[in-house]
C-alpha cells in the first residue's frame, strides 16, 4: 500500500512540475516575446561556408490522402505489393482496407502470410490476384488460418482440392471454421449429400458455402414450388451446376419459363443438361428463334437432327452457326436484326 501511495505521489509531483513549466513560460497572452531561431553555430558565423549537417533524413511529412497512390513511392511495402501484382486502386473505395495495408511492414507482417498462401497451393502469378480479392487476410491470426486449412484436411479434402478452393475463392480463408462447418452441414442435410458429393460441390463452387442461406433457401423454394423440380432433381442441379443456387431468382425463373414453356422442354431434359439455365436469356432466345426459323429446333433425342441443349448455348456464334445451325454467320446476323 505504502509503495503504491509513493508511486502515486511521485506521479502527481511530476505532473505539478510539468504544469509549472507551462505556467512559467515567457509568453503570456498580453505580451509575446520573440525568440531568435537557433541556427547551427558555424552557419551563423559564416553564411557562405559549406554546410556540414546532413539533411537527407529530413523530408516533408506525408499528407492525408484519399488513395494509396500518394504513398506508394515512399512505402517499400506497397512497392513490394505492386511487384506481386496487387491491384491497389481497388482498395481506394474502402478506407478500412487502406488503413490496415498502410500499417503493415512487408518483411515483418506480410511475408509469413504470403508464404502461407503459397504453401496452400496458390502459384506465384496468382498471389497478386488473391491479395486483391482478400487483402484483409493480413488481419487474421496465423493460427486461425492454419486451423482452417487443417479443418479441410480433417474433412478429407486432398491437397489439390484445397488449392482450388483457395484459388477460386480467396475469401474462404477469412471465414471461421464454425461458420463453414455449419453451412457444410446445412447443405448436407438439406440435399442429402454424401461426403464425396459435398467435397465435389465445394471444389466446384466454394462461394456457395458462404452465400447467404436466406437466398439459397429462396432459390430452393422457387425450384420446388414455382418450377416444380423434385428433391432428387434439385440435388442433381446442385451437383452438376451449383451456380444456379447463387443466381438471382428473377433471372433463373425467366430462363426456366422460356425454356420450359416456350421451347417446350420438360424437366428431365433440363436436369440432364442444366448448363442451359446458367446462360443468358437473350442467347437462348436468339439461337432458339433462329433454329425455329430454319426448322431445326429439334430437341427430342429420339428424332433425327437432334440439338442438345448444352450444344445450343455452348461456344461462340461462329461455332453455333457452323455446327448446329449449318449456315454462315452473316445470315445469322441479318436474322438477328429482324427480331428484337
Amino acid at each position, binding site marked *: 500500500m505504502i509503495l503504491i501511495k509513493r508511486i502515486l505521489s511521485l506521479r502527481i509531483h511530476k505532473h505539478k512540475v510539468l504544469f509549472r513549466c507551462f505556467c512559467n513560460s515567457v509568453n503570456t497572452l498580453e505580451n509575446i516575446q520573440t525568440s531568435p531561431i537557433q541556427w547551427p553555430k558555424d552557419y551563423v558565423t559564416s553564411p557562405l561556408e559549406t554546410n556540414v549537417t546532413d539533411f537527407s533524413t529530413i523530408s516533408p511529412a506525408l499528407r492525408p490522402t484519399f488513395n494509396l497512390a500518394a504513398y506508394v513511392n515512399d512505402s517499400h511495402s506497397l512497392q513490394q505489393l505492386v511487384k506481386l501484382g496487387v491491384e491497389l486502386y481497388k482498395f481506394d473505395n474502402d478506407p478500412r482496407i487502406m488503413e490496415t495495408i498502410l500499417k503493415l511492414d512487408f518483411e515483418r507482417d506480410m511475408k509469413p502470410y504470403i508464404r502461407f498462401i503459397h504453401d496452400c497451393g496458390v502459384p506465384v502469378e496468382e498471389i497478386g490476384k488473391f491479395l486483391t480479392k482478400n487483402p484483409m487476410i493480413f488481419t487474421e491470426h496465423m493460427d486461425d488460418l492454419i486451423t482452417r486449412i487443417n479443418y479441410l484436411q480433417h474433412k478429407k479434402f486432398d491437397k489439390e482440392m484445397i488449392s482450388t478452393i483457395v484459388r477460386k475463392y480467396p475469401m474462404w480463408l477469412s471465414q471461421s471454421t464454425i461458420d463453414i462447418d455449419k453451412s457444410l452441414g446445412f447443405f448436407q442435410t438439406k440435399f442429402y449429400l454424401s461426403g464425396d458429393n459435398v467435397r465435389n460441390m465445394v471444389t466446384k463452387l466454394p462461394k456457395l458455402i458462404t452465400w447467404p442461406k436466406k437466398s439459397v433457401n429462396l432459390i430452393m423454394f422457387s425450384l420446388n414450388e414455382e418450377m416444380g423440380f423434385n428433391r432428387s432433381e434439385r440435388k442433381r442441379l446442385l451437383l452438376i451446376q451449383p451456380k444456379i443456387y447463387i443466381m438471382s431468382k428473377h433471372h433463373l425463373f425467366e430462363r426456366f419459363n422460356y425454356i420450359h414453356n416456350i421451347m417446350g422442354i420438360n424437366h428431365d431434359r433440363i436436369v440432364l443438361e442444366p448448363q442451359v439455365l446458367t446462360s443468358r436469356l437473350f442467347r437462348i432466345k436468339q439461337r432458339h428463334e433462329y433454329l425455329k426459323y430454319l426448322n431445326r429446333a429439334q430437341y427430342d433425342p429420339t428424332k433425327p437432327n437432334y440439338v442438345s441443349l448444352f450444344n445450343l448455348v455452348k461456344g461462340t456464334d461462329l461455332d453455333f452457326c457452323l455446327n448446329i445451325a449449318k449456315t454462315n454467320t452473316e445470315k445469322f446476323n441479318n436474322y*438477328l436484326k429482324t427480331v428484337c
Partner: protein
Amino acid sequence: MNYLSNSEKAFKLLNGIVCLYKPAGVSLKGCRHSLLLKLCQDLNSMDVRPPENRVIISGDTTKSLEVKLEPSYADNVLVVGPRYQSKDLKCIWTTHLGMRVSGVCVMGLNKGTKMVRHLQENYPLRTYHLHGQLGIMTKNMHIDGQVVEKGRFDFVKRENIDKLMSTIQASNQKKMFHLAKVDTQTQMAYDLATKGLIRPTSSNEPLIYGIKCISLELPNFVIEVNVINEYESYLLSLVHEIGLKLRCSATCTALRCIRYSSFNINQALLMKHWNLQYVLDNIKECNSSYDKINHLSAFVAEQSQLETNQNMTSV
C-alpha cells in the same frame, strides 16, 4: 489492322457517330454503359502509356548527391487504375428510345456529341416497324402486360386497315400545317410544301409523315411509320388506337426502329460486335454519311425557318 496496336491512336479515332442495334429490354443507359465498358477494355488491352519517370535525389547532402530516373510507382496501372476508364469517353444518344424499343440507336462519341446534337436539332425522320397483335388488350398496351380483354378479330380485312392508315396520315398532314401556323389554302402553305418536308419547330408534338401496313397475317400485323418527335408510349398508344378504330383490340408485340435519318439498320452494330474494331469501322462509315446529309439544303431546317420568319417581318 495497323492502328489497333497503339491505344492512343485508337482513342483519337474514337470521334464521331456510332450506329448501334439496341436490343429490346435494355435501357439506353445500359447500352451506353456496356459499349463504353467494352471500348475501355479493348483500349486497355492494347499498348498503353508506360508509367512516367520520377527523379529521385538521394545520398548525403554534404557530399555530392545521386540523381536517378526511375519509373514512378504512383503512375503504375496497378496503383492508379486502368489507363482508360468509361468516364474518359463522352457519349450521348440522339433520341431517347424506351426499354421496349429495339433497333437503330445513334450515339455520339467524344467530338461526335456535337454532331449528334446538331442532328437532333434538325428533327430527323425516324422509321419504325410496329408489330401488333389483334384481338387482345393489355393494361400497359404491350404484350408483356396484364390482359384486360380478348375479342374477335376475323372480320378485319386489308382494306379496313389501309383506309384507316390513309385517314391517320391525312389528319397528320393537316396537323403539320397547323403547327407551322399557316392556312392550307394560302400561297405560303404552297411555298412551304415545295421546300420539302415540313419539319416541326418544337420537340413536344409527335408528327406522323407516313404510315402504312406492310403485312397482315391475322392476328399479327406490322405497321411501318415515319415519324418525328415520337416516344415509346406514343407508339404503343398508336397501335392501341388502331385496334380500337378497327373495332377490336390490339396490343403491341415489338417496336423496332429501322431507320434514323440516313442511318439504317444495315449499318447498325449488333451487341456482340460492340468492340473497338467494329466501332471504329462503324464511326468511319457513319461520319461520311453524316457529312453527306450535313451538306443537304433541306437538312438545315432551322435556317430555312429563320429565313421565312424574316420574310414575314419584311412583308
